């Protein structure tokens, strides 16, 4: 792997990691009151996937999606302001963490409904196919989403039309509080692709080089008109379903396995193995930490949205008296 690309993945990963760490700090200190689906443990899978995309490529993600959005390039200030319900947020505070949207970075939908993003991703890809604009659409979801009908309908349709879409399953071993083996009888998510004659790959998502290689190949195939790929990236959800939630239901062995697979020390070691120096990496981190701190400050300094926002963006036109007895 090229040195620059590895550094790019490292930077994306650490921006996610420092953001996540600060989110948890802010919630624990009472500075931010919000429901937060922490991305701890899934920083690297996303970073390596998004590093294979262009800014104009589309992303559709889900409520546990802050790692995907940051790795795709959503600016931190407006992202955090959105989570904090500020007027300067990506969505003027009207969406929140579960509905981050930022078309300038290609983030078209973040959905709070499990599995709903997959059919939408097909539509974005269909637009690209019709226009031949060369864009690729990636849709992120967890293992739990593969048991809802939308997954199966979307997989079948994507393959039928050979759409330039990548179904990016971050298999973190749990659907809400239910372990994979308790919700699914097939041994892997990738196995399900065979039912639709779709190409599928299972990869260790915490192996930066392997994850990036799989991502790059899927993107190249989609761009070349060779159709969709299902990527099953194995990873761990290290802090439960949402931050603060009990995860004592996880067996001790799983928690040990999870800690041993932590992508952050592993990536750091890989960087050192690839001849990056400690001081080089520390300098990168210092820059990222300053950026994250400034972004939180920007959010907290921002005003809240006005009540007139309720009448805006329902339709293109403002909802006026007489339209809905307002």
């Amino acid at each position: 792997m090229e040195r620059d690309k590895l550094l790019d993945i490292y930077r994306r990963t650490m921006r996610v990691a420092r953001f996540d760490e600060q989110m948890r700090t802010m919630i624990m200190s009472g500075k931010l009151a919000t429901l937060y689906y922490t991305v701890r443990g899934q920083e690297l899978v996303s970073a390596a996937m998004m590093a294979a995309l262009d800014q104009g490529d589309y992303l559709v993600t889900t409520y546990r999606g802050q790692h995907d959005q940051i790795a795709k390039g959503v600016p931190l200030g407006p992202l955090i302001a959105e989570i904090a319900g500020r007027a300067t947020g990506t969505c003027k505070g009207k969406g929140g963490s579960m509905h981050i949207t930022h078309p300038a970075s290609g983030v078209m939908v973040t959905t709070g409904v499990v599995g709903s993003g997959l059919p939408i991703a097909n539509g974005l890809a269909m637009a690209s196919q019709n226009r031949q604009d060369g864009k690729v659409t990636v849709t992120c979801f967890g293992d739990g989403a593969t048991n809802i009908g939308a997954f199966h309908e979307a997989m079948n349709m994507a393959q039928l039309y050979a759409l330039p879409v990548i179904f990016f399953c971050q298999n973190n071993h749990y659907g809400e509080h239910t372990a994979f083996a308790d919700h699914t009888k097939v041994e892997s998510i990738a196995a399900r692709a065979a039912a639709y004659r779709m190409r599928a790959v299972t990869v260790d998502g915490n192996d930066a080089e392997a994850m990036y290689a799989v991502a790059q190949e899927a993107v190249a195939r989609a761009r070349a008109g060779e159709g969709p790929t299902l990527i099953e990236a194995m990873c761990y959800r290290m802090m439960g379903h949402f931050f603060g939630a009990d995860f004592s239901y996880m067996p001790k062995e799983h928690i040990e396995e999870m800690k041993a697979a932590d992508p952050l020390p592993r990536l750091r070691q890989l960087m050192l193995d690839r001849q990056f120096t400690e001081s080089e990496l520390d300098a990168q981190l210092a820059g990222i930490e300053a950026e994250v701190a400034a972004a939180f400050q920007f959010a907290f300094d921002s005003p809240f949205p006005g009540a007139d926002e309720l009448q805006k963006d329902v339709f293109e036109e403002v909802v006026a008296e007489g339209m809905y007895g307002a």
Partner: protein
Amino acid sequence: MSKITMVQALNRAIDEAMAEDEGVILLGEDVAAKQGGGVFKVSSGLTEKYGEHRIRATPISETAIMGACVGAALAGMRPIAEIMLMNFVTVAMDQIVNHAAKLRFMSGGQTNVPLVIRTTTGVGVGFGGQHSDMLEAWFAHVPGLKIVTPSNAADAQGLMRAAIACNDPVIFIENILCYGLQGEDPGANHVVPLGQAAVPVTGTDCTIITYGRTVIDAIAVAGQLRDEGISVEVIDLRTIAPFDEATVLASVRKTGRAVVLHEAVKAFGTGAEISARINEKLFGQLKAPVHRIGGAFSAVPMASVLEQAWIPTKDEIATAVRHAMAWSAAT
């Protein structure tokens, strides 16, 4: 004057929009030439002109159809989803209610969903409980959706052009019983703006507010009552939500009496909203209580005799108007 059926009118509107804008695409079960151009032939001849990438025959996957249309719309296309029958729309509710309707708002206006959801339904042909429902009230309750239904061919053509041009999602309800009816041919490039009611019959004693197929019944009843000396005004809402409140209030202010009529189940229907709006704004000016007429509170039955008992009849409409007139005389 030349005549045209509602199917021909809809076909022409979609054809014109597709010729004008490459972003207009149609997705649905059986819609392409290979499958016969749609169950009701609305997309007949379009595949030959625009190709299979723009007229996409889909698997029987309402969620995937609707999701694909939402995604294509987000990318700036103007998709039309054909959901064969209105009851099947229920399979795609998540995409319509949680996504199509809300993405503009939840994104703070950064994205929008210019999508037309075409669907058909209708009571009176014995299709039974899962192929006949009018479900407009479900969608009218969701902020972010517009709902349209034509009662004649010319309006079908004009409303379809406006719906495709609209930058927000529009549910376009067609009635199976109206598809073959001949109506005035409005000619090419006819547009009927959304949100504007029509007044096919003017009168001074009582206003019947309705939409879709029951407009035909209301017009017939107005003719019948004219012979009894009752002057009925008929309002065809055309756009159910958001409805043309100004036209409704102006008419009822004039007549002092209102009957709200729809084919959908009366209980918790759109008639309740329209009635409430009239009561809130014109309470002191009404000469009779606002009366609602709608379908019975049961699933739509199959047997013809039961179906006719279920659906609002012309007699029921005429009786409601006469009661409103009598109420006025008694007070």
